[in-house]
């Protein structure tokens, strides 16, 4: 018997739990929790507890695939990589570097993302590099940089349990981030006050002191109203505002209009409840604000984020232990992919590409001429592909044909490409469209690091050999670069991290060896720096925290006679994003095997729809036949769907209207219709 416990980091959400993969005779055979891990502390959610099964589906892509005459044929690595290098080189030569784009991945390691953006910048010669944070937390980076100077979770996960007040808005914490949900539960059990603002009656709403069930897409109005009450009752932290912030007068002017009476009909919430919430929040400190995609996935996503930041600064809750503004990152390494600059406007560690001094630093380090022009986001790469300006894409570990809004449009764009390379562990609708599919090794088959939501860099360790002929993704990127004439030579991922540390000051003290036990939280400036538990202590990254006066704007699409419902989408506990891994996990898929739409009891009654009836949900972009789940979880006039089902993708319905600043789609609110199917 050969049983091993290999410590690693969970590949699902951004909480970044630690666990052991059980390896028996060379095969994955289970998961064991770790009592000593700082995030999970002996606990796991159901996805973590079953994560071993997610990557051993029989349909793993085992060989490189080249599409010939519309059909994939298995190919050797050399042949495939030669083809990839040749095609990308030719496109670069024919149409220029900016006709190419690279998509890094929030699912992959820091090392992969660093190499992917280096491939784009140093080899392709373009800043057209981005990743799936564009569909989730890009507004966080854009918004918090504007407000605080740094776009990350300000405090640590374990601090949440010691907060006196938790203000959770647009975050289904126990389902989307169960181990942070645990801290919310613990805080509440210890006597903290809990205010939940969410269009659905989620689990935390059931035990909250106050649940504000506002309409999707009315967060700014709600937040402005809370600030209106706080200011009009003199509950703001005047000293903090004076010494630590700027722009208060502008804010005050804008929120003056948002009296509870004025706001109530916009948000669909009783005026008194908002007054009660504002008082409770302002008087209970420290208050920790938690938010996720309910805030960011709107056309006003970035402004939503800045409004959240306004409220926290108004009450002096930023830069204090167990307080802060805490965007809970949705994917295992979305923080890291941003840090590694799989972003069109930054070099690694948020160093701007249009800053000549920074450009020079990277030109010297990489010994190559670099483009000073910020690149295109994934959103704009898709749009420009349709216009014929983007000719070749290298997509790593992403499935925009399931995850992007209005996927019918995305398909039309990708069809226009001259050359599409997709790098995946399982076939996906996007991979099906590719000219070349490169089989990557999963988290269990390689080494590297993930950075969790609280900026903690943690290692993954190789537990089993790569499945079939798949290879660790970072090695594949190295081979493509090398074949294109720029050798990427790294003995292992530890050396890639050493290069990252040498170039990104916030990662200055990071090395695999130092991260081996419990990780390190950036900023970690040098080899002796202990890492940083919470940000903005004493001083904001940008100096003074900045208030922004922001007016409410409704979603791009609002209900009308033809489409009378607001449709929102989201994640549930038993599944993860496009379902690639969770749908292949027996115990997870068994629990929720089919797509559904949540609808309120009153609406169900009006339409003659009972629980588990077949029904059709339509928007201007498409329709889906799904089961109805009739309950009191959503309010009248609102519907909600998960987005995990590739056979019934919610994003056939969602609106491809984008936040003008962060270019994130409005997944959380569009107009829809519901009909019974007999």
């Amino acid at each position, binding site marked *: *018997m050969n*049983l091993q416990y290999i410590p690693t980091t969970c590949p699902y959400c951004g909480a970044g739990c630690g666990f052991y993969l059980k390896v028996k005779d060379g095969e994955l*055979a*289970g998961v064991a929790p770790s009592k000593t891990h700082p995030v999970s502390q002996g*606990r796991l959610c159901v996805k973590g507890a079953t994560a071993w099964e997610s990557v051993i589906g029989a349909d793993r892509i085992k060989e490189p695939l080249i599409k010939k005459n519309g059909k994939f044929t298995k190919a050797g690595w050399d042949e495939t990589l030669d083809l990839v290098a040749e095609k990308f080189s030719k496109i670069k030569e024919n149409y220029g570097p900016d006709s190419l784009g690279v998509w890094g991945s929030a699912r992959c390691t820091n090392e992969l993302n660093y190499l992917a953006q280096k491939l784009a910048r140093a080899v392709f010669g373009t800043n057209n590099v981005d990743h799936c944070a564009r569909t989730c937390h890009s507004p966080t980076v854009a918004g918090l940089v504007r407000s605080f100077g740094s776009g990350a979770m300000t405090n640590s996960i374990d601090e949440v349990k010691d907060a006196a007040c938790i203000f959770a808005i647009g975050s289904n914490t126990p389902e989307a981030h*169960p181990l942070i949900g645990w801290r919310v539960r613990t805080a509440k059990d210890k006597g903290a006050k809990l205010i939940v603002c969410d269009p659905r009656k989620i689990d935390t709403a059931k035990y909250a002191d106050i649940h504000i069930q506002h309409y999707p897409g009315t967060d700014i109005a709600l937040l402005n109203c809370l600030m209106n009450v706080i200011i009009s009752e003199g509950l703001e932290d005047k000293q903090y505002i004076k010494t630590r912030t700027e722009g208060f007068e502008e804010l005050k002017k804008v929120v003056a209009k948002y009296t509870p009476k004025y706001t109530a009909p916009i948000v669909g919430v009783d005026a008194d409840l908002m007054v009660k919430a504002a008082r409770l929040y302002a008087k209970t400190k420290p208050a920790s604000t938690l938010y996720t995609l309910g805030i960011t996935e709107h056309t006003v996503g970035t402004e939503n984020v800045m409004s959240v930041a306004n409220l926290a600064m108004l009450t002096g809750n930023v830069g204090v232990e167990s307080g802060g503004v805490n965007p809970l990152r949705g994917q295992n390494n979305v923080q890291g992919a941003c840090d590694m600059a799989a972003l069109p406007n930054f070099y690694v560690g948020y160093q701007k590409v249009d800053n000549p001094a920074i450009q020079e630093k990277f030109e010297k380090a990489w010994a190559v001429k670099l483009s000073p022009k910020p690149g295109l986001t994934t959103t704009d790469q898709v749009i420009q592909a349709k216009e014929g300006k983007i000719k070749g894409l290298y997509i790593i570990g992403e499935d925009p044909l399931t995850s992007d809004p209005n996927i019918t449009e995305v398909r039309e764009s990708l069809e226009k490409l001259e050359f599409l390379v997709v790098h995946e562990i399982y076939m996906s609708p996007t991979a099906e469209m590719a000219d070349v599919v490169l089989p990557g090794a999963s988290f269990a088959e390689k080494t590297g690091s993930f950075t969790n939501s609280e900026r903690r860099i943690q290692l993954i360790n190789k537990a089993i050999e790569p499945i079939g002929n798949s290879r660790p993704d970072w090695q594949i990127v190295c081979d493509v670069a090398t074949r294109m004439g720029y050798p990427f030579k790294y003995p292992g991922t530890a050396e890639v991290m050493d290069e990252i540390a040498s170039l990104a000051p916030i990662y200055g003290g990071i090395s695999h060896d130092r991260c081996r036990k419990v990780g390190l939280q950036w900023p970690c400036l040098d080899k002796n720096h202990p890492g940083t538990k919470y940000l903005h202590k004493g001083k904001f990254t940008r100096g003074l925290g900045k208030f922004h006066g922001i007016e409410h704007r409704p979603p791009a699409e609002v209900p009308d006679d033809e489409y009378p419902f607001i449709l929102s989408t989201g994640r549930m506990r038993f599944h993860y994003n496009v379902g690639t891994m969770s749908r292949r996990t027996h115990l997870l898929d068994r*629990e929720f095997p089919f797509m559904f739409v949540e609808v309120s009891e009153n609406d169900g009654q009006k339409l003659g729809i009972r629980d588990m009836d077949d029904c059709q949900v339509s928007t201007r972009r498409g329709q889906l036949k799904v089961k109805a789940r009739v309950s009191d979880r959503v309010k009248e006039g609102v519907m909600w769907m998960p987005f995990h089902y590739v056979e019934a993708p919610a994003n056939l319905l969602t609106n491809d209207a984008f936040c003008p600043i962060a270019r994130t789609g409005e997944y959380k609110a569009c107009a829809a219709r519901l009909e019974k199917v007999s």
Partner: protein
Amino acid sequence: MPVTSKIEIKNASITKDSLSRLLKKICKERILIAPVRNDDLDDVNFLPVTNPAQICCDYDNTTTSPKEFFFPQYECMFTFSGTSHESIEAGDDSEEIVLFGLRACDVKAIELLDKFYERNFEDNYYLSKRQKSVIISVACPDLNDQCFCTATETGPLLQDGFDIQLLSSVNAYAVQIGSEKGLQLFEQYQYLFGPPLELDINKLLAQAKKQKAKFNLQKVYENLKQQNVDEDLWEDIGARCQSCGLCLFLCPTCSCYSVKDQKTPPGENRRSRQWDACYFSSITRMAGGNNPIRTNAEMIKRKYQHKLVQQIDEFGTSGCVGCGRCNLACVGNVNWLDNIIKIERAT
């Protein structure tokens, strides 16, 4: 064939040095499984060791339970090709193993599982592994703040049900041999053992029993059996439970499993079983959607009833052995021990 047969307890002793020699010998001849501390994270778990130096001696109990050596989290039941059942044979990956360092609670848990897998129909996947195993358990020095074997009468040292039990003394261990299998191992290495210590084991047992039990099991049993527990308790636990299954995966006596036909990446077809948990609603939901367990509260109550009433009725011992592993595994802060105490105090 029963997995173990009891004998009249025989006493001996072994010095700490001789114990190291014994373990070294066992390593060479069989598979030795013992507590090992992970290099990166600090958890201690039972793992195969090739050198006794790897064994961790400073531990309360392991993070996971040793049940996985007999009832693994994932196990191939048989392989097949095509659609014919004709040539299918049951897999058997049992090997000669010695488990060292188990605590009394885990030994009692395995004893309960033995009865469970032997009764009615014999589960050979479990039993063949058990038959080839010998357990050397080490009595606990003390209870920690989460475990409670004195209340469930499953420790910290055992009166019976062990193969070999060690009790720590100054420079040596008192050794008790309690089964045929234990005796065989003892006889094979008899030259390493010494005469019984002048240690009054009955006195130790009496002392152990005196350690304050954290609850009265009989009272808990009665309150559950007589439905004296307020439904609010089940409602509260049900609302807290996030259906992760972890407490049940960690439990040394939980034995639910699911079965699935699947293909491995290299293309082998398998029917396999894996740990399941009664805290998933889909464990009872039937094809067609009907679920006889209607609410989380019912689901939770079923588990408490199973461990603390029905298993006592069926096997004569508590289905909870007091190891405390599940207490700190819950993202909803459900603490099994606290809840048992609430049940005890229901009347």
